[in-house]
């Protein structure tokens, strides 16, 4: 195995180290295993051969279960988790802070406040179809507000995080107030949404979210170089020719959009955006595209696994995946802290 691969095209050359990519391959394999298991396990358990038959005959009874119920649900979970993982990685990279993630910086709270407001005020007249739009708008306008509030001749990363925490608390209070003030049935469905759930996912949701993710992912490809430079000190980055403020704003828009679309279709998942990048960092110390891809894959794995647990562990009940995301993520995070101290 060579130590580097060199890609040379006219006007473009790149050194690729294969080592982290091999680990990416391993994690990809893990994600596929999780996907396979979540297709096979459920109220109607299937063996491997039954699963194969079901996947090839979409009209059979098992085929319907797998292709119309389990597959879109697992895929939606994977997309939501992947987008949150990427968004968290971007936030941590840009804000140079291991605590930064869409849910702590306030983007998720903005989406939540907008979505819960939509639930209790507009959903009766307009139906649920516009909910994702409300959540995306909420996320984006919150990100914009935080950015403006943090602006003092430029935006410093730490100030951004702290102001995000403040804005997040404010929006959390608004959400709580709406929950308290609205009737109990609305409160309950809004509460499940706030936990984060991919319950009753269908193919149209999957394609819509996949479209957004593809769009944002494509936008990220030319930006990847800049994300790797973002953790540098402002003065240093300026010195090597990065337009610091401009880059920061651009990356924040992409990260907020990613969190916004994920939350719009999956609900306010906490912890994925915080923990998935840390997992990626544990596997690969070198910051690079491979690490970002790992964060995406870990996020996808987390949500898929959490949903799998949520719908199988307490079987007559189908619990929101968000509960299990935190149940997996928080202990991991605490052990990470304890181990670092030694």
């Amino acid at each position, binding site marked *: 195995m060579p130590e580097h691969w060199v890609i040379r095209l006219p006007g473009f050359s790149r050194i690729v180290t294969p080592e982290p990519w091999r680990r990416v391959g391993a994690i990809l394999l893990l994600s596929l295993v999780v996907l396979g298991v979540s297709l096979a396990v459920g109220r109607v358990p299937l063996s491997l051969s039954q699963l194969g038959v079901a996947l090839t005959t979409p009209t059979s009874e098992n085929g319907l279960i797998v292709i119309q119920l389990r597959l879109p649900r697992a895929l939606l979970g994977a997309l939501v988790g992947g987008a949150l993982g990427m968004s968290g990685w971007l936030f941590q990279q840009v*804000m*140079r*802070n*291991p*605590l930064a993630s869409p849910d*702590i910086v306030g983007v998720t709270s903005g989406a939540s406040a907008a979505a819960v407001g939509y639930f209790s005020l507009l959903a009766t007249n307009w139906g649920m179809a516009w909910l994702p739009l409300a959540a995306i708008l909420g996320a984006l306008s919150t990100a914009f507000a935080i950015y403006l*509030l943090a602006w*003092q001749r430029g935006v*410093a*990363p*730490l*100030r951004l995080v*702290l*102001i995000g925490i*403040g*804005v997040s*608390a*404010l929006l*959390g*209070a*608004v959400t*709580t*107030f709406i*929950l*308290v*003030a609205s009737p*109990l049935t609305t*409160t*309950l469905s809004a*509460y*499940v949404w*706030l*936990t984060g759930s991919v319950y009753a996912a269908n193919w149209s949701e999957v394609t819509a979210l996949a479209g957004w993710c593809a769009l944002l992912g494509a936008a990220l490809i030319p930006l990847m170089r800049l994300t790797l430079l973002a953790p540098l*000190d*402002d003065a240093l980055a300026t010195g090597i020719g990065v337009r610091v403020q401009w880059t920061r704003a651009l990356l924040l828009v992409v990260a907020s959009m990613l969190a916004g679309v994920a939350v719009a279709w999956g609900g306010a998942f*906490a*912890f994925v955006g915080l923990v998935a990048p840390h997992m990626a960092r544990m596997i690969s110390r070198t910051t690079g595209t491979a690490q970002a891809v790992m964060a995406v894959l870990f996020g996808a794995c987390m949500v898929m696994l959490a949903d799998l647990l949520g719908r199988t562990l*307490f079987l007559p*009940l189908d*619990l*929101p995946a*968000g*509960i299990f*995301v*935190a*149940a997996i*993520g*928080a*202990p991991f*995070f*605490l052990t990470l*802290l*304890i181990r670092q*101290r*030694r």
Partner: protein
Amino acid sequence: MRRRLWLFAVAMLGASLLSLMSGAYWFGPLTIWQALWSPSPTDVADLLIRTTRLPRTLVAMVVGASLAVAGCMIQTLTRNPLASPGLLGINAGALLVIVSLVSVWTVMSPWAWYAGALLGATLAAGIVWWVAMRGRSLSGPLHLVLAGAALTALCNAFSQALLVIDQQGLDTVLFWLAGSVAGRPLATIWPLISLALIAMLCVWPLARSMNVLAAGEAVAKGVGLRVYRLQAMMVILIVLLAGTSVAMAGNIAFVGLIVPHIAKGWLPVDHRAWIPGCALLGATLLLLADVVGRVVILPGEVPVGVMTALIGAPVFVALIRRQGVRHA
């Protein structure tokens, strides 16, 4: 300094009078004087004041004061100006215990709830403290923050799980999520109030040592302070103060974070001034927030926890902007 503290005390008395007066029915100061000192058992106004307004005012006062003092102490302890009692996972731990009492064991007695909340707060703070102290020093406040955030998320996830399964429970504990000082009869609440007051009295003799600790752990050790013992005592007092507050009033954001900053802006750099100043200002702030929340959408009420967040978040943002954090 004396004069400023007296001013704060007058402000608090004014706020408490306002809190007794205002609401769906307005009472004059004279009616309140009568209700407090020579009540007649048949008078509706007297009854209303003594059974609902008075407990509410007392709870708001004690909770506001406790949270502010706890906030002041934790900011000294962690040397982090943005620390607040909720950081130790106290609120989330208390909530988790209450939710499990309500939805798993269907306990409906307020006594059990209060005890449970205190227990949950202690456990959560203990775990966070243990995780953060693994290196035998608090030199990295970031670790405390991270551990607190992680434990908060974990507890909240379990609370959410229980509430999603047991949907009746959500209705019962929703006020706890929102934070409220209403509907606490004095007959059940007095042990918590007295516990908080005792804890606040215990803070007072530590104020001088806290001044030394504020100079830095190494310096404090150098001049002969038993740092570890002081830190442990401070944590216990913080848990007592914040725990009783959560048990009485639920999630109340920002009081513990902001009041110390306001108080420090007006008082000399000395914990012996800060502690009483924080207590008085905290009580005033929570009383005013409760009064505003009571009258602003009149047939209904805005929970006081929501009000403090609405007031507190802009102050917090302004604080950060003024401090001018430049580098991470």
